[in-house]
């Protein structure tokens, strides 16, 4: 009888970060940092709108033509500029949400993102979305993994105890 090697590996969680909304980045960052604190092997795969928060805050626009630039403008690249998924009210929503969070000592998602990275959470950008939207590696924050595709993300999910789509 051979032992099941899977049992000797740490538990694992994969999050597909599809949304770039502030109120969805928060649970992504809280869960990934906490799972890492629990000793789990954690990977976050950033795809579609989820990629814009990985753009550096001082990069105002990304894209290679008028349409991709316009999409970037509408999605405000950078985690600090992330909007609420609903009732953002031209910025009022996310401004108020951040105020409320700070008052309650909840760290902003960009801080939890840094903590997650420090604790070894794998941050994987989606190569296809980078190509599609014209987001260049030098425009993105430091400490990310190599861009990967759907098959790599799926392989990770197949070996994860928990897989989430946020």
């Amino acid at each position, binding site marked *: 009888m051979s032992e099941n090697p899977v049992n000797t590996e740490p538990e694992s969680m994969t999050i597909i970060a599809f949304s770039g909304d502030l109120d969805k980045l928060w649970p992504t960052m809280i869960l990934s940092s906490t799972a890492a*604190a629990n000793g789990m092997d954690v990977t976050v795969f950033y795809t579609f709108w989820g990629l814009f928060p990985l753009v550096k805050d001082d990069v105002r626009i990304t894209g290679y033509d008028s349409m991709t630039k316009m999409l970037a403008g509408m999605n405000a690249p950078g985690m600090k500029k992330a909007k609420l998924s609903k009732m953002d009210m031209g910025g009022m929503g996310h401004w108020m949400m951040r105020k409320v969070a700070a008052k309650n000592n909840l760290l902003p998602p960009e801080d939890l993102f840094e903590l997650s990275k420090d604790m070894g959470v794998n941050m994987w950008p989606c190569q296809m979305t980078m190509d599609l939207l014209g987001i260049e590696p030098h425009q993105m924050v430091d400490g990310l993994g190599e861009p990967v595709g759907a098959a790599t993300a799926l392989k990770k999910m197949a070996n994860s105890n928990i897989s989430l789509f946020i």
Partner: protein
Amino acid sequence: MEATEAAKTTVDAKGQSCPMPVLMSAKAAKELAPGETMLIEATDNGARSDIPAWVDQTGNELIESSEEGGVMRFLVRKK
């Protein structure tokens, strides 16, 4: 709490919101040698279940817990 005196380190997570008490505890646990203990103090209501859950998940041992004046205290031994 006699055992409290023996805690190698104290994690002051009072005033911190989820997930910080757990993250701070995990960081402190890394500095401990197996068998050493730490005292975690928190005021976040989520910590009441989160710290025991984290202890359970990481295989550490919750020696005792108490709550007084809104401050929760957890004495944890590293596995």
